[in-house]
């Protein structure tokens, strides 16, 4: 099958303002909608020890007003315009975005530029958002069965603090954050030369350039933040841990492997190996464990994509009275099977069709395109990858997958987490 995707490429125009802000425009008039995304090159990987969770807490501060925008004004302005917006924080970056009716395009530029220039940093806002973030942690992690296990596994897989600690942070560290921390963080990371602005949807290119210049060009450049070291030692032994979960109804387990960075051939091959193993009802492990042996209730996995060392994970929730060791062994046997015997032609065809389908679907919405363009610009300085990276995936061969599985998954150098329910009632 061809390794080309036969659809029109995303139209890209890119430039950099004098203050270092990288801008990417994608004019696409298929819907009267425009999406604006601002990505800052800061995530939990940039946090220092004792400030776990700070990048995310800071993201909340970005909605608390700036010189010309009142507290909660951001929400109000976007709502009034019939738009939606949000911000998210991950290990690799923090992003902010607005989706608006096309006529409201300038509003997003006004709002994003005002907070990049003049964020309103007050003790009152910090106290309030600290409380909100701690509730977010309770709601999404602490009060959920199995809510904390992925963060615990990440701590096991990675050795380097930059990679290993959680994005949501700890209550202790969140409580330790000061107003000075907020101000320093803003100065250091929220500078135009540490950010990318993308616009996708229905707008005029010339007007967009003019407006972006007007709103962003006078925001001063800052010294670049310090380089961070995300390197990891090669693992040399199996790590094992037990987590007692007060809310979980059944035992569970996770297995994690340290794997090469995103956009390497090995990473792409391992992403595909993961899909073959656990993605969907036709996957090998679903057929072996959920069907076949009938030992597993839920099977899941994902590939955590990072600029540095990344992570592959497989997990399962076995049925009661099942032997967890035996189930893990089935997983290792299947990895060994791929390592020895490779991948069939049918499986390769399936993977390629899934890649094509996912890629075309991801291009439907202006926000989807704005986000892709922003990521490839921020991480690779190459927005064109939004059109071409799919070809790198489609060119991965069965042998690439076999070799990558053999080298990175068929190994004792992995982390295993056993989750044990302890319902005290």
């Amino acid at each position, binding site marked *: 099958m061809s390794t080309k995707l036969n659809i029109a490429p995303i139209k890209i125009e890119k430039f950099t303002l004098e203050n270092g802000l990288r801008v990417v425009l994608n004019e696409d008039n298929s*819907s009267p909608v425009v999406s604006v995304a601002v990505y800052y090159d800061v995530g939990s990987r940039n946090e220092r020890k004792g400030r776990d969770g700070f990048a995310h807490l800071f993201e909340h501060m970005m909605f608390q007003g700036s010189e010309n925008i009142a507290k*909660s004004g951001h929400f109000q302005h976007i709502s009034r315009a019939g738009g939606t917006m949000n911000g998210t924080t991950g290990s690799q970056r923090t992003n902010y975005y607005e989706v608006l009716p096309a006529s409201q395009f300038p509003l997003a530029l006004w709002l994003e530029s005002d907070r990049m220039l003049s964020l309103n940093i007050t003790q009152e806002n910090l106290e309030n958002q600290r409380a909100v973030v701690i509730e977010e942690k309770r709601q999404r992690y602490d009060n959920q069965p199995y809510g904390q296990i992925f963060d615990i596994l990440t701590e096991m897989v990675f050795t380097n603090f930059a990679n290993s600690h959680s994005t949501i942070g700890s209550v202790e560290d969140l409580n330790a954050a000061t107003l000075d921390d907020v101000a320093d963080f803003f100065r250091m990371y929220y500078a135009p030369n540490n950010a990318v602005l993308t616009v996708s949807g229905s707008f005029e290119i010339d007007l967009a350039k003019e407006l972006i210049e007007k709103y962003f060009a006078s925001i001063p450049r800052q010294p670049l933040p310090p380089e961070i070291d995300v390197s990891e030692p090669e693992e040399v032994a199996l790590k094992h841990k037990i987590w007692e979960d007060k809310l979980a109804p059944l035992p569970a387990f996770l297995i994690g492997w340290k794997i090469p960075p995103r956009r390497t051939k090995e990473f792409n091959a391992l992403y595909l190996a993961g899909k073959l193993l656990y993605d969907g009802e036709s996957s090998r492990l679903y057929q072996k464990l959920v069907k076949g042996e009938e030992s597993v209730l839920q099977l899941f996995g994902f590939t955590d994509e990072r600029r540095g060392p990344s992570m592959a994970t497989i997990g399962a929730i076995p049925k009661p009275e099942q032997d967890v060791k035996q189930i893990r062994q089935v997983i290792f046997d299947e990895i060994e099977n791929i390592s020895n015997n490779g991948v069939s032609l049918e499986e390769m065809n399936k993977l390629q069709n899934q890649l094509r389908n996912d890629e075309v679907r991801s291009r439907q919405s202006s926000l989807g395109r704005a986000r892709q363009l922003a990521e490839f610009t921020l991480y690779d300085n190459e927005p064109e990858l939004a059109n071409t990276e799919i070809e790198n995936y489609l060119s991965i061969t069965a042998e690439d997958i076999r070799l990558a599985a053999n080298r990175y998954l068929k190994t004792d150098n992995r982390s295993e987490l056993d989750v044990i329910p302890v319902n005290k009632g």
Partner: protein
Amino acid sequence: MNEDFRKQPPLKLAERPFSISKPFETHLENGLKIIIFEDSKLPLVSFRLAFRFGEIDDNNRQLSIMNSMMKEGTEKFSSKQLADETDKYGASISIGSSSDDTIIAASSLSVYRSEMLDLIAEVLFKPTFPEDELELKKQNSIEGLKFNRSDAGFLADERFSKIVYGEHPYSITSPTVSQLENITRDDLVALHRERFVPNIATFLVVGDVNKDDLLAELKAKFGDWKQGSVVSKDFASVPKRTKKTLTIVDRADSAQSNIVIGNLGIKRTDEDYFSCLVMNQILGSGATSRLFMNIREDKGYTYGAYSSFDKRKLTGTFEASAEVRNEVTGAAMTEFFYELNRIRDENVSDDDINLAKSYLTGVFPLRVETLEGLMGQLVSQELYDLPKDYLETYRENIEAVTISDVKRVAQKYIDVEKIAIVIVGDKKDILSQIEGFADNIETFDVEGNLIN
């Protein structure tokens, strides 16, 4: 540097026209309604075969098992072969029911349109319900119920539904273990034969298709489908509430209290629908609403506080809810009631209502940017029997809502004196904070048993 332009929000640009053309509609001779919307922006296609029967039309609650069993073996394919056949195109097929309807959903690259229609026809017409697959499905569903019981949101929804719906089948949110244990293959065969009939179904297709080719194909593949009888809808009436109630589901070790406050609301086609939409936008929808601004942005009690009217074919509910830390459970309830009373007692401001209206009208084009978004609109318009001109008249219907409408529907549908309060949380941590909110408190355990 003179940057006065930053002081005011920028003027908006010229409006870019927005219109959705009317989809093509027809019926096959067997009564199957067809809706086709051609959209060739990208080589994708999306299908929904929607039936006007749902969980409430099935007293034994066997639908969820039957739906998933339709993919576990057909005359032509085994369970694994069906999974392979779907995944090899990078496509997906799922079958699911809500209270009111049942939908077979599929999507793929448009080049595989015919293959997907064959697969839909295969799972629809030829399921064999193999005994061994049924046993596994029952076993897994029973374990799944245990899972649900570990989730605070499930427990809150389950208890709230029982309280406000009483004997009406909307009160049931999941089957019981014994219902699942007792399902036989014969049950599924009968249910399948009875329910999946063309005269209560609509086939919607959105995407990169040619209408005439598609119609010919639909006729060939779904034209011989035999009509059946229409489900009769005869349900127990909903109870009339007489007083405020407070119910705790005692979930040990909860890190938060999951609070739900509400009562019965409206059906989707109620004449008060648009007034309720605007009122709720002001009260509790999204980050500009009063509940969010008060309980999150001002007090910091929660990650989010919201309210909603759920959309149902018959009577829906009104609910205000938040997850808050244990220590502020009582304080959060005080704020909820402050806001519920305020929107009943005081006129909202011009600014409040204008903000709500401009959001509700402006956001519309964003909702239909993708195939699935557009499909969602078409499906709900069809299944809720909304008027043909619903999309065209949406804006004027919103614009027509007045400040007194907002107050009127708040008073009518938020009955604070007879409202139901459900809290899922750790009773020993929260009891003393909430005792004053109702005359007495009922407590259930997480298994659903009444404790006192």
